[in-house]
């Protein structure tokens, strides 16, 4: 959680310093949900399709910080090599597919990864998870994907972070059911609700959902209630979020809640947490420094092909723009 | 046999539910058939009596095949709107008469017979026969292909005007060109000099315009008298050059150049002079002829002509002229139709002087005089006969007072 927050604060700062190519999208306020999911998954066995606000989950799942800074800063050494940016990065070979911007689209992809494992006879004990927001539950892709996963009874966990706003659109313009978790019943999948600002609750509920899926209980859907504590992206100040939403229970910062929970339950002392923060800040700074010194993509070195197959008779359709 | 599904070509009769003589009702399933996709029933469109059954159980029939016939009353046909067999036959006849093969072919795949389709053998691509231009980038209609081949060979439109075209609308094809060139190979030929090609190019480009030539006789005696007393002696052509320039200053647009909807006026009265050299003509330009006296022009003129003959002109020497003077009289010719350069509208030519009796009104008798033809060729888009006449008469007039030149 802390790693995600500190890294994202740094990204925000780099964005404001003009160092970042493209946009920056933060998961501020969603770290408890995202990180507990990432922690409940086992890299190398499970699949995790993060979405826009899942830095904490990515880190918890095992994504190194350098993957993030390289992608944001456009280093050619990053997983996307400058061909795609920011939160669209992934490591499909390590069980973490790269999201596309079209919401809900990753649900069926994770289902397919699990389906492959079933066909290969290695599905037992494996889970696939993806995160989406309240807005994505309105898409056809979400419906189709969750329905398909339910039909195939795949161990898929869909965590819906209901952060109350899809960009600027509030819940009442997004769905008409009283609670999104009602949809789970309609799909025939397990449904859970959780306070997304409460780390311990998330550990318990999301952990339980992952366990059920892992044990053969079919798809599970967790709806976490929280508030996005940033704009849609760093270009957006979120001024449309009413003041009442910021001060009500779900407007609280999950990081602060988590710190308090750690101290109260004697998991860590305040001093230890400060020490963690310093250590993480240092790691983040090093990842940023390294990525900044690395080469950016060179249009002359690009092969400008979108296919892995080389067709001997196929001529380039037109000259590369930089030739 | 009805069309029982997309992409269905045929169906097999599984069971005949009726026999000849049976009474059938509308929408009754009377024949059970199996397609590649499903088993289904063939229904009747109206009430009637089975009069004939052609379908046999276990046999496949293509879509559109006749499976059997019903005997139906006229009233039933009216009630159900079903076409009678006679009506269908009649329509078939009329359709095939009016629409012909067009109709028959419009649904090609229905017309395919049951013979197994033979896949065509693969043909190995190769460019055979004609030398096809492949490396070039770059009469009437000349296609890009023809143009590319002509560019390959350095051939111009004018060169192919002698070829009888066999292409669409009589146009000359690459094949025609190749045949013509093969034919020419049976004639003796030699390589044209660069000078010849340069003149050819200039004349070809100039000839794209509507050129007209007018002329009048001039008397050279005063001019020759005047010349006799000069030192150094100006050439006859130089007199013409000077008179031409002065006349043009009075009518500058006559030498204008038409580009689109604009007449471009002379910027400076710089006039070229045609000098015959080996295998061609060059045209050095004498600058600002209107502003220099004949006397001053002599050395400049002689230098240009001398250098022209020795092929020592620079490119700049031949640039920027607005008109040209040519003295073909030096070849003993008395008349001609000179052609202006492509970038000029006018050319003034003069033939050889000839001794002639000329009527003198003063003494009322024929007197011997030296007469020559003065000719002006002009671009008729810019100048008309009247304008050309005014200019030519003025030149002639100026030549009668050589001391003023």
């Amino acid at each position, binding site marked *: 959680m802390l790693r995600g927050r500190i890294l994202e604060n740094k990204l925000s700062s780099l964005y404001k310093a003009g160092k970042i190519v493209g946009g920056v999208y933060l998961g501020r306020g969603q770290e408890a949900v995202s990180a507990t999911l990432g922690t409940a998954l086992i890299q190398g066995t499970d699949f995790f399709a993060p979405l826009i606000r899942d830095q904490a989950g990515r880190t918890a799942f095992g994504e190194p910080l350098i993957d993030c800074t390289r992608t944001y800063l456009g280093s050619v050494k990053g997983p996307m090599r400058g061909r795609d940016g920011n939160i669209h990065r992934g490591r499909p070979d390590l069980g973490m597919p790269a999201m596309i911007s079209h919401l809900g689209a990753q649900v069926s992809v994770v289902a397919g990864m699990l389906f492959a494992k079933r066909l290969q006879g290695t599905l037992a004990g494996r889970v696939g998870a993806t995160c989406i927001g309240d807005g994505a539950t309105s898409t056809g892709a979400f419906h189709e994907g969750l329905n398909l996963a339910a039909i195939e009874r795949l161990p898929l966990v869909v965590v819906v972070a209901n952060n109350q706003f899809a960009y600027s659109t509030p819940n009442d313009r997004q769905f008409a059911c009283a609670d999104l978790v009602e949809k789970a019943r309609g799909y025939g999948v397990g449904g859970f609700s959780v306070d997304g600002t409460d780390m311990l609750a998330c550990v318990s509920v999301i952990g339980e959902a992952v366990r059920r899926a892992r044990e053969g209980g079919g798809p599970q859907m967790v709806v976490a209630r929280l508030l996005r504590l940033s704009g849609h992206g760093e270009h957006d100040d979120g001024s449309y979020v009413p003041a009442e939403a910021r001060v009500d229970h779900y407007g609280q910062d999950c990081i602060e809640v988590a710190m308090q929970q750690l101290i109260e339950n004697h998991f860590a002392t305040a001093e230890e947490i400060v020490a963690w923060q310093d250590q993480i800040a240092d790691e983040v700074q090093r990842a940023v420094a390294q990525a900044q010194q690395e080469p950016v993509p060179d249009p002359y070195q690009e092969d400008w092909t979108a296919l892995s197959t080389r067709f001997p008779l196929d001529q380039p359709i037109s000259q590369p723009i930089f030739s | 046999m009805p069309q029982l599904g997309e992409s269905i070509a045929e169906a097999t009769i599984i069971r005949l539910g009726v026999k000849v003589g049976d009474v059938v009702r509308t929408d009754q399933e009377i024949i059970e058939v199996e397609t590649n996709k499903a088993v289904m029933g063939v229904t009747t469109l109206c009430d009637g009596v089975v009069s004939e059954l052609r379908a046999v159980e276990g046999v496949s029939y293509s879509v559109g095949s006749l499976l059997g016939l019903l005997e139906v009353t006229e009233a039933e046909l009216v009630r159900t709107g079903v076409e009678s067999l006679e009506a269908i036959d009649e329509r078939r006849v009329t359709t095939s008469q009016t629409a012909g093969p067009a109709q028959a072919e419009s649904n090609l795949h229905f017309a395919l017979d049951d013979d197994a389709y033979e896949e065509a053998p693969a*043909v190995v691509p190769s460019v055979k026969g004609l030398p096809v231009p492949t490396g070039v980038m770059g009469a009437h209609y000349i296609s890009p292909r023809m143009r590319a081949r002509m560019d390959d060979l350095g051939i111009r439109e004018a060169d192919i005007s002698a070829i009888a075209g066999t292409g669409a609308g009589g146009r000359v094809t690459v094949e025609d060109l190749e045949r013509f060139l093969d034919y020419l190979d049976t004639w003796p030929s030699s390589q044209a000099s660069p000078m010849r090609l340069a003149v050819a190019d200039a004349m070809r480009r100039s000839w794209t315009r509507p050129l007209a030539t007018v002329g009048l006789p001039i008397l050279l005696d005063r001019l020759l008298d005047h010349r006799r007393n000069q030192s150094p002696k100006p050439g006859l052509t130089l007199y013409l050059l000077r008179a031409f320039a002065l006349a043009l200053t009075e009518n500058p647009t006559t030498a204008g150049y038409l580009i689109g909807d604009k007449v471009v006026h002379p910027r400076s009265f710089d006039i070229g002079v045609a000098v015959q050299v080996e295998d061609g003509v060059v045209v050095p330009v004498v600058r600002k002829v209107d502003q220099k006296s004949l006397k001053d022009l002599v050395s400049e003129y002689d230098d240009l002509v001398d250098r022209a003959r020795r092929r020592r002109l620079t490119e700049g020497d031949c640039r920027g002229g607005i008109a040209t003077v040519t003295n073909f009289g030096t070849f003993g010719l008395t008349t001609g139709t000179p052609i202006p350069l492509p970038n000029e509208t006018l050319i003034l030519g003069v033939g050889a002087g000839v001794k002639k009796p000329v009527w003198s009104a003063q003494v009322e008798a024929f007197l011997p005089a030296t007469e020559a033809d003065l000719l002006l060729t002009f671009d008729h888009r810019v100048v008309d006969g009247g304008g050309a006449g005014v200019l030519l008469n003025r030149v002639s007039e100026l030549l009668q007072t050589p001391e003023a030149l």
Partner: protein
Amino acid sequence: MSVTYIDAIREAQEKLLREDDRVFLYGQDIATFGGAFKATKGLAEKFPNRVFDAPISEDAMIGMAVGAAIEGMRPIIEMQFADFSSVAFNQIVNQAATHFYRTGMPIPLTVRLPSGGTPGSGPFHSQSMEGIYAQYPGLVVLTPATVSDAYHMLLDGVALDDPVIYCEHKFLYRWLKAKSINGDHLPIGQARITRPGKHATVVAYSAMVHEAVRAADRLVQDGWEIEVVDLRSVKPLDIDTILASVARTGRLLAVGEAFPWGGVTAEVVARVTEEGFHLLDAPPQRLNARDTPVPYHPKLWAAHRPTPESICEALRKLLSF
């Protein structure tokens, strides 16, 4: 004994299932029912747990296939009709097609699109989508016109590591028959000279190859020898074979069954004009379907798409230029 075009597609899938554990089939009604066109008839019985009925969720079907391909499978997805792939458009062009370029991991999935018109099929069961998919980088688009190509190109397509849009023509399913499947075949990306000629080149693909051959047969009586080029794959496009043919004939007509705005025929004409202008004796021509939805009534439908007749007319015009 003869083999139909759809037999060849079924046979190819059977061979793939038999020989490659990574292959599985996913599509609506394709398991015990055998598919709307019976292209998978009997396969579910022969290969239990390899052939699956899908929910009517075209988007999720492709998304699922992408996920399975990431994890090492080679899914073949049957769209019931090419027309319905528009519902899966996002997953095809944004997920599958961009994946290799973005992440370096290719997605070896094959989408079978029962394409093109048949009489009475109407606006939503007749579409030709190849041009739309060819427009997107990252997809291989195959359009077999013969029984043997239907067989070999499906095998070769599934063997590719990249996403393949396999456009099979519904009209050819049962009308097109061959005595047997040829043993030898051309690689993907190479066009075939179906019929040699010297006066004009017709570039066609899928069902239009047969219409073009019929048109060429008719023009023989007028002394015209028409060369017919079967593209086989519209992407990659074998421009070399097209240019070589135009070099022989000097005239080009591109024929396609898709809608007229842009598309494969426009690409062919553009490429030839760009790279082979000097080969042309006449302005290159295109002949496509009309710019309306595909009509339902067979009479309208037959006049909506190019026919041997309209191809002849276009060729006569081209030859008289």
